[in-house]
């Protein structure tokens, strides 16, 4: 990564009169704009930067050189499933037949795209052990919101809408779970984890009553452990008329090896940008399809694709009980397309190799790294493993944060840190199946070297990183005096004292 002086901002590179595009001159009869747009108020100035094409390309090339990525190295971010993004997926998405297809194109003129949607509805439902799937949600949290709306619609339809006002989430859950529940109008209650890192059944029992609309579980959970009491949990929650929601963020551990639908879940979302290899894009776009059991099908949103008797694909008209729609379109098509290409590469014969090698790699790291760094719950893990730097923090004053920052100097992206919240000094490592044994070994050696430094020269860790484009940032000032755009004269005045 480039450690030269910072790259100027677009606006600082701008020079009056430059342009980076050659557009056609008008080939229709001339008329004054003021006549064509009779009722318009025109703006005086359009304060956009002015650059030539080489300026634009060099600027963004320089920026790209100040950024870590999967294609440049190991990215063991727990819970994020940073696996390799196959290039054939990108080629597919560049085809004009998809990229330049308007969503309102009559279905008869978009049968290729319709088939992708139709097949993916079926494939995802099958992988999840579910009966139907909506591709509409744009991301995981969006899928959660839709899933909860379906749960709510189900209860309302069964006359329990007013009573069932509570969603349970484990204390180790992703923050999106309680946030989505709140956005859906539910109150939330947290279920404790027991000493083995799973849902505490006794605590769950104490929370269960007729007000419980459902429970949101990630399985395997955010500690990388399978909720091995899932059958009992399902029985208990179903026993009070609640439904089970599966946060599919960790599906990479299960693909082809276990299905949420088979363990009692009623509704789940997938993160295509995790499990099915579509690029994270620096924070999106994603895609969060929601798959459901039969009982929830009537409430699914618009945009479902059906196949007619003569083999044509059409959009189904949503039924009277449909929740409506959670997005303007029928899903993140270009993301769904990439995931489709990925799934077809593996096919039914090989798809379970994803989970098999993901779990193998995680356990290999657990064993090798576990010799030097404590494992929070030391037993067989699924696709990720949670370590804790509690011992190092106590002995040398070195925090998980410092270890993470030092890893950058060794050329790695750090793991997720301080999550799940219930593990002190957590380092959450998810290697994914696409990393080789040599990569994992080299990472372990880097971690060993850092842990030696922690003991002998801890100041190296607290000063880290030193080789990166910038060093540790003043994040507190950034939040106290927010400067969110270039002009910098913006402030809410709240903290100027």
């Amino acid at each position, binding site marked *: 990564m480039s450690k030269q002086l910072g790259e100027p901002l677009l606006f600082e590179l701008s020079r009056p009169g430059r342009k980076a595009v050659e557009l056609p001159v*008008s080939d229709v009869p001339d008329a004054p704009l003021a006549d064509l747009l009779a009722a318009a108020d025109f703006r005086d100035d359009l304060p956009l930067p002015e650059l030539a094409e080489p300026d634009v390309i060099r600027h963004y090339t320089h920026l790209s050189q100040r950024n870590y990525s999967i*294609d440049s190295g190991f990215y063991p971010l727990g819970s994020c499933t940073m696996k390799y993004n196959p290039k054939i997926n990108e080629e597919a998405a560049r085809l004009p037949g998809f990229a330049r297809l308007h969503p309102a194109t009559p279905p008869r003129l978009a049968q290729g795209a319709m088939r992708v949607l139709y097949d993916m509805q079926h494939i995802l439902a099958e992988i999840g052990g579910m009966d139907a799937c909506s591709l509409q949600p744009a991301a995981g949290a969006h899928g959660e919101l839709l899933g909860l709306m379906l749960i709510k619609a189900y209860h309302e339809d069964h006359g329990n809408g007013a009573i069932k006002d509570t969603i349970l989430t484990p204390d180790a859950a992703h923050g999106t779970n309680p946030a989505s529940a709140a956005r859906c109008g539910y109150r939330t209650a947290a279920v404790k984890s027991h000493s083995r890192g799973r849902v505490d059944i006794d605590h769950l029992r104490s929370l269960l009553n007729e007000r419980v609309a459902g429970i949101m579980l990630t399985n395997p959970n955010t500690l990388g452990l399978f909720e091995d009491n899932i059958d009992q949990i399902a029985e208990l929650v179903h026993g009070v008329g609640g439904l089970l929601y599966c946060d599919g963020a960790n599906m990479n551990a299960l693909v082809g090896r276990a299905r949420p639908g088979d363990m009692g879940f009623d509704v789940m979302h997938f993160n295509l940008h995790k499990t099915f290899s579509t690029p994270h894009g*620096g924070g999106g*776009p994603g895609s969060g399809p929601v798959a459901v059991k039969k009982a929830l099908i009537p409430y699914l949103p618009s945009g479902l694709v059906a196949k007619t008797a003569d083999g044509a694909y059409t959009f189904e008209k949503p039924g009277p009980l449909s929740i409506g729609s959670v997005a303007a379109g029928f899903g993140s098509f270009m993301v769904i397309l990439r995931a489709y290409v990925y799934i077809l590469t593996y096919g039914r014969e090989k798809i379970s190799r994803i989970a098999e090698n993901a779990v193998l790699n995680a356990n290999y790291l657990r064993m090798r790294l576990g010799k030097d760094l404590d494992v929070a719950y030391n037993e067989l893990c699924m696709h990720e493993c949670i370590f804790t730097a509690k011992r190092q923090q106590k002995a040398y004053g070195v925090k998980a944060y410092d270890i993470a920052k030092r890893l950058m100097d060794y050329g790695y992206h750090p793991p997720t840190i301080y999550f799940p919240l219930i593990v002190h000094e957590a380092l959450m490592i998810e290697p994914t199946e696409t990393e080789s044994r040599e990569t994992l070994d080299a990472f372990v050696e880097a971690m060993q070297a850092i842990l030696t430094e922690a003991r002998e020269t801890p100041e190296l860790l607290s000063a880290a990183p030193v080789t990166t484009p910038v060093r540790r940032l003043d994040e507190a000032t950034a939040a106290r005096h927010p400067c969110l755009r270039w002009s910098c004269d913006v402030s809410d005045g709240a903290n100027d004292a």
Partner: protein
Amino acid sequence: MAYIANTDADQKAMLAEIGLASIDDLFSQIPEQDRFSGQLDIPASLDQIALQKYIARLAGLNADSEKFPTFLGAGVYDHYVPPTVGAVLGRSEFYTSYTPYQPEISQGVLQSIYEFQTLIGELFAMDVANASMYDGATGLAEAAIMAADLTGRKRVLVFETVSPAYQAVLRTYLRHSAIEIVVVPNRDGAGDLGALEELLGDGDAAVLVQHPNFFGNLEAVRDIVRLAHAAGALVIESPDPISLALLDPPGAYGVDIVAAEGQSLGCPMGFGGPLLGLFACKSEFMRRLPGRVVGETKDIEGKRAFVMTLRTREQDIRREKATSNICTNVALYALASAVYLATMGKTGLREVAELSTRKAHYAADRISKIPGFSLTYPNATFFKEFAIETPALVDEINKALWSEGIVGGYALGEKRMLVAVTEQRTSEEIDRFVDVMRRTDW
């Protein structure tokens, strides 16, 4: 496997290190009855050559705008995407990176988002913009919820002239936030201001307006802001970002929150997804913004640097008390729009807007002169899209257009069509479109 490096020998050695005998043993923590041991009912594996051919064949079944001129719009537009966008988005340093939670090695994405926020702020003339939302529709719903929180009021007014797809999302979202929606009727192709004035009361959190609206027409936005503010309601506007190369920006006349669809700014139509939600507001509301925001700061050596900030609004920290549940956004499309705006610049974006305006008005002028056809809203001012009354079923006209290799307009009703014209349509294509309509045997 192409994407899995582990060989049989690797697996064996790794299993030995773990102390297990087989791959199956790795899954022993899953209760027997919860394991899946059969074969999934999904398609068989394809080799890369067969896969490429299959996908190309599917792509070939679609009437895309590279092969066929299209007059579809209704929220997603066939604007020109300059080659710089593909060149930058194709850099895997951008597209294979995660959310920039580790700023020291994510300055590329962070600076690009900061620049994006600035560009959107400038385009809208708004104080602050966030790092993006899923799309314009969900952004509008989030804005309505934000306005309800800010004002403590539980009702919003939305113009009937707002995209029906956006209204549908709004209804779905707001039902769960116990916010009431009242629709202000369409009058001659724009919002009925008399009705708005009558409806507005001290229980209204916001007025939602699309400008240009779903029918392509301009709204009397200054009057709307005046009326809404007089009643203590906020104004949420969904503008077409391309139109803002010409039109007065929302910040210039007091709009409080802007929630727009940004697909037109260099993003592929992609059969409608992903899209790009643009979201901006006045600075006094910044701590109630949904989603991610990037701010400027310094590192310990005093170098300028960028970081995600105001994080205590977000779900991973605030959980059920977060301002929104959004996590993943559409950072890569935000980058596309920033590259687009940097490429178009001050003059290019204006040219795009002017060309679209001129060509749309040329098309409308020609169509309105065909016997049997007329403009639905002859007294409205439209930008690049307009509604027409047709003598035959829209479906029938579109089939006739398709037989000439043209993808027709969007059906607003059986005999009403919405026609969008961008800078990509040539006068020759528009003339062909008009010539099909001029057939006398409808």
